[in-house]
């Protein structure tokens, strides 16, 4: 697959380990992509995008609707092949190839499979499921408050529970990078905060990197180490904002929203989304 070749390309390009910090989990270099409509008109979506995501980093991509966020995800996850440039998945710390997992707004649970079977789907699709996998799945379901419903069918579950099963399914394949495409936008506020916490905990305990696409600026600020504002047509990175919050305790979905800098970031991102901004540092991160 395309990703496999990209991995080796990345490893060749990698500098000696001593030269820099840990290798990026994802490197997007000079990525350009265009859609050709039925009447032959080619619309450029991205023009020379460059960015990277480091280990255990949470990065959000915000942009107006139609900015090409979902296309970008399809390119990163390998569902689409880029027309120009490269998407490179960095290796794990032990040198094994990294892995991307993808989670959408729709939970996409299979109605004919129990919660446990749904959680195991990702593993099942590329190798035989072992008893150890089943144990791990049960543990993770239990951690997300789904232990009692492991053998129920998805239709018996609430939206938040279903989305947590989808999260479990995503995490069980041991990804180095998780792509979240507005995964919580259909949920009520409280459930949403809980799931945001889940994702932050995931980063803290496994070092998983996360890329989140959202149109909710607050969610982006609360969860991320960095927020990228995507805009223009063809889209480029208009702003790359590191988020640094002054917190009294542990960072979580609620405490982050109470940080003194929160409003300021909100205003800045909102302004970037609304108005045409001078393309400072255009497309280069």
């Amino acid at each position, binding site marked *: *697959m395309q990703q496999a070749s990209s991995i080796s390309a990345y490893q060749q390009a990698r500098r000696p380990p001593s030269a820099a910090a840990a290798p990026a989990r994802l490197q997007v270099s000079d990525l350009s992509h265009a859609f050709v409509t039925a009447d032959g008109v080619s619309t450029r979506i991205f023009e020379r995008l460059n960015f990277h995501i480091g280990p255990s980093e949470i990065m959000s991509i915000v942009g107006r609707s139609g900015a090409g966020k979902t296309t970008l995800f399809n390119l990163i996850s390998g569902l689409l092949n880029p027309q120009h440039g490269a998407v490179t998945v960095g290796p794990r710390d032990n040198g094994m190839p990294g892995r991307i997992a993808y989670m959408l707004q729709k939970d996409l649970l299979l109605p004919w499979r*129990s919660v446990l079977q749904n959680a195991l789907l990702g593993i099942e699709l590329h190798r035989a499921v072992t008893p150890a996998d089943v144990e791990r799945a049960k543990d993770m379901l239990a951690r*997300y408050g*789904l232990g009692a419903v492991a053998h129920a069918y998805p*239709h018996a579950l609430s939206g938040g529970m279903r989305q947590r099963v989808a999260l479990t399914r995503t995490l069980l*394949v041991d990804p180095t990078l998780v792509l979240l495409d507005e995964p919580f936008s259909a949920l009520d506020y409280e459930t949403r905060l809980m799931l945001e916490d889940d994702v932050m905990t995931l980063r803290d305990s496994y070092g998983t990197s996360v890329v989140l696409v959202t149109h909710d600026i607050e969610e982006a600020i609360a969860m991320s180490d960095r927020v990228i504002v995507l805009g223009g047509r063809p889209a480029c990175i208009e702003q790359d904002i590191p988020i640094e919050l002054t917190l009294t305790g542990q960072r979580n979905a609620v405490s982050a929203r109470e940080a003194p800098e929160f409003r300021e970031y909100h205003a800045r991102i909102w302004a970037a989304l609304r108005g045409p901004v001078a393309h400072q540092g255009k497309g280069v991160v």
Partner: protein
Amino acid sequence: MSNALAVETIRVGRRRAIKLPSPSSVIRAGSVAALCLGLLTLWQIAASHHWINGQLFGSPLGIYNAAYSGLTQGTLASDTLITLYETLAGLAIGSLLGTGLGLLLWFLPALAGLAEGFSILLNSIPKIALGPLIIIWFGSGAGSKIWLAAISTFAVAMISSTAAAREIDRDLLNLFRSFQAKRSMIFRKLILPSALPWIFSTLRVNIGFALIGSVVGEYIASQAGLGHEVFVAGSLFDLNTVWLGVIILTLMATLLTFIVQLIEERIVSWKPKR
């Protein structure tokens, strides 16, 4: 943080206990039976008092006598079994081939459009009109009836399974692809299970088509079967035997539908109950 979810009440899909019919369904079944019984009584009275011509309309008692003599001579049971065999074999062949081909076309999207157009054309043929042809090719035995029933069910099965495979949610396909699933895996774990409800509803419709195929085949040329029995009785103005045949065919179709439904409930048990 998960406390709020843990206390949420949820229905856990356990194996159901034996389902008792609800009072309203008992009342409905009872009134249908009472209505039928009343009509039969009325019919019998009308025939006995010669208000209607018993020769032209038959009568419930006449049907009973026909059934009794058919049972004692053994022809009724053997005719029923022959028609049942032809119908089931035709249904199995037609549905299996049609469904299999329709689903496998998912692997060949380039061919799917062509094949779907062809199956729609095939479905437009009044299959019964092919009867004489089939009889010439396969003789007047059970074979020609099986094939007529198979042809009657094939196109419907193929059209609906092609559609079932095509209607798969794009996001689900993308999910499978993002897990790097092979096409054979996608077929086994996604296409096939999502098509199952479609396959069963087609199967239920096809019971009727298969029955028409086998019975009309028997009308055209045969030595046995309920269609043969009905056809011969009709030409002899033995209306009671005609009625008897019709009743048995109706019961057969109902029974088959019921069996398919039972199998469906077993296999598609994940579906939320209404």
